[in-house]
């Protein structure tokens, strides 16, 4: 047994929730090993190609559940590599949400105001940029003009994109070939490596157990680099502290599988999953009407015909992010792009008879694909997702060699969630169909259930042990030394893209993890600057009780 490798911290997953503590803890002096189940790719590996086996299927994961399918990252950098890089902060009212538990579901100590210094740290570290109208794609511009025509506002979203490098290729779901997207591969991870952190790709953590000295033994399988259905070996590593940041679709599964060895898990592990209230609508744009009504045209003479041009979302309507509205009636409507395949199968032909997701009528709208405008609705759901029995390994029974799997998540939308979706659908329709600009239909939920690109809350922070798996410090209840710092820790739907909030919470969790390491005799300090050396964010948080330790 003396051959077992030991380290101070094992971090499971390398997305926002893993990379951020990896950097800070390594910079502070801890020995950090990051285990990532997916491959390690760099800019030149990111293909513009839909071929099975290209980066698109290597780095991306689609897990079908019962009533909910989850899309996420599967590579070093995790979700930050495949996401669309919209980085708004969550509106104030979100932190006062009650959701399904009848009282505030966020910890009392967290509000938008108290989270601002942590948002600022992320803002400086990524860095996040505000966008101007000249950065906005045709699709975003069209959505803005349609909102304006309905007397509504529209905002270019803050993004983690270097727009000077961006080619508007709309391939960012397959990773960014031009390093324009500021994924974790461009900031926290290289900084963590520079401070000695080790990152091990194709290491899929399956379960944890306790060691006799109060630490944890982490069991992992080695994954074949081409066919993820094949496991090529296994191993163990021991650590004083384990940080689980495998994503809201995988973190609870690892903990559930560890229950036999670790003892009973808190009730909130694998419950209260939220799909961020997400839903999509596809509008088929009438170019003649857009020219006449909105006065839009491109320099090259076309009016729109630009579905394929851009960089994910660029413009959002935030009119319904109004704290005076009742819960479940607040949402944002954001222009978005999805590539063919995932972005076409669930789209429905507007009008006509069911089924509208396949057949001759669907083929007709595919011919108009370049005139599609996709609108992404982020509403308030009811945290109704529950994870069933874990699969033997990973978080899914893998079907395809990459990307597609069948997972244990069950999600039956409540009346609150369904009503929120209906309100947002109707609002979207009123805006985009006004004066004949387009015909719109929501994506069907009948084929793979609802779907989310922003899984949340399956192992959440909170004050109430009955409804939250984690203490407000992100430490797992009843299991000292295990922390969860990813999307699973976010208490509920945010009504906006969650990456900025996930990252801010991970930043906020780090000082507590440093203290936990110090308590276990590790010589580690908190106080690293931003990955590029900037110090404004550090200065601001250094006065907070959380950091000062008061």
């Amino acid at each position, binding site marked *: 047994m003396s051959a077992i490798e030991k380290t101070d911290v094992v971090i499971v997953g390398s997305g926002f929730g893993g990379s951020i503590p990896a950097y800070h803890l390594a910079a502070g002096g801890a020995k950090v090993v990051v285990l990532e189940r997916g491959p390690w790719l760099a800019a030149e590996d990111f293909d*513009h*190609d839909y*071929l*099975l*086996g290209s980066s698109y299927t290597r780095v991306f994961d689609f897990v079908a559940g019962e009533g909910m399918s989850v899309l996420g990252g599967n590579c070093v950098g995790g979700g930050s590599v495949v996401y669309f890089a919209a980085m*708004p*902060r969550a*509106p104030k009212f979100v932190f006062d949400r009650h959701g399904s538990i009848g009282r505030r579901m966020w910890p009392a100590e967290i509000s938008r105001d108290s989270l601002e210094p942590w948002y600022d740290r992320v803002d400086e570290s990524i860095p*996040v940029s*505000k966008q101007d*109208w*000249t950065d*906005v*794609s045709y699709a975003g*511009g*069209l959505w*803005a003009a349609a*909102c*304006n025509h309905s007397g*509504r*506002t*529209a*905002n*270019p*979203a*803050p993004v983690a994109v270097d727009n000077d490098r961006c*080619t*508007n*290729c*709309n391939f960012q779901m397959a990773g960014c070939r031009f390093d324009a997207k500021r994924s974790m591969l461009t900031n926290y991870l290289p900084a963590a490596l520079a401070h000695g952190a080790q990152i091990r790709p194709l290491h899929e953590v399956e379960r944890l157990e306790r060691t006799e000295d109060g630490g944890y033994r982490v069991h992992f399988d080695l994954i074949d680099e081409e*066919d993820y259905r094949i496991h090529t070996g296994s191993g163990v590593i021991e650590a004083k502290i384990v940080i689980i940041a495998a994503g809201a679709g995988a973190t609870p599964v690892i903990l559930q599988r560890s229950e036999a060895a670790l003892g009973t898990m808190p009730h909130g592990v694998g419950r209260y999953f939220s799909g961020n209230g997400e839903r999509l609508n596809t509008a088929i744009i009438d170019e003649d009407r857009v020219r006449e009504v909105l006065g*839009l045209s491109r320099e090259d003479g076309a009016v729109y015909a*630009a579905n394929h*041009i*851009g960089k994910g979302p660029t413009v959002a309507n*935030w*009119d319904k*992010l109004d704290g005076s509205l009742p819960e479940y009636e607040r949402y*944002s409507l954001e222009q978005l792009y999805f*590539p*063919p*395949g995932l972005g*076409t199968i669930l789209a429905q032909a507007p009008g006509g008879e*069911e*089924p509208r997701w*396949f*057949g*001759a009528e669907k*083929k007709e709208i*595919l011919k108009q*694909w*370049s005139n599609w405008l996709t609108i992404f609705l982020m509403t308030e759901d009811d945290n109704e997702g529950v994870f069933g029995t874990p699969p033997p390994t990973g978080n899914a029974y*893998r*079907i*395809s*060699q990459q990307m*597609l799997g*069948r997972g244990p998540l069950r999600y039956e939308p409540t009346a609150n969630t369904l009503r929120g979706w209906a309100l947002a659908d109707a609002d979207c329709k009123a805006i985009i169909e006004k004066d004949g600009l387009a015909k719109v239909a929501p994506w069907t939920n009948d*084929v793979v259930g609802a779907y989310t690109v922003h899984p949340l809350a399956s192992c959440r922070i909170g004050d109430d042990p009955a409804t939250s798996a984690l203490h407000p410090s992100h430490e797992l209840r009843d299991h000292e030394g295990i922390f969860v710092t990813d999307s699973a820790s976010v208490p509920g739907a945010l009504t906006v893209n969650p990456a*900025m909030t996930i990252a801010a919470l991970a930043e906020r969790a780090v000082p507590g993890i440093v203290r936990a390491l110090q308590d276990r005799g590790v010589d580690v300090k908190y106080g690293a600057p931003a990955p590029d050396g900037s110090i404004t964010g550090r200065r601001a948080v250094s006065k907070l009780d959380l950091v000062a330790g008061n």
Partner: protein
Amino acid sequence: MASEEEVQVLTLEAYADTIVPGEKRFPEDRAVAGAAPGPGAVEAGALDLLNYDATGITAGLPYLVQSLNDHAKSYAGEVELEIDTDVPPFVALPYEHRRALVTRLTKPGHPEKEGWVSLALFCNMAYDTAPHRHTAEALAAGHPGLLALGYRPPDADGLWRFPKFSYGRKLADLHPDTTPSGSPA
């Protein structure tokens, strides 16, 4: 009746053609029903994709084919439709009936839904994504689905770049409560 292999090909082609219908390839084409103008999923390479074992669906195809034909036989009996026996039962169904049966098989609650949805997913992708081929090569070779979508060829190095991407002007007022960081308040 055709060989087992022919039954599989005809049946899967008919299923793919139900998801993305196309015009008949030749006058006596039975698998492709001719329910829509232009090439559909079959001509786009649905069978090439289904037979590519990276999908994870290939090994299950014989079972799906047998089950689909069993369902087609029961369905025809149920709606009192007389079907030819010289082709597999699903192939013998006219397009509208194939469509009705696939609708039933992919509805929430159907015990075999998952298999039929997976099959539909890959048939659809063969047409609009062509994941069995390099995208740039498929486009250059005139892949019917990618062309129908209006997909443009990439630059000479195989990468897509769109130097013109924006209307370049203000098109709406910002939300009045936008914070200095560009976020909602």
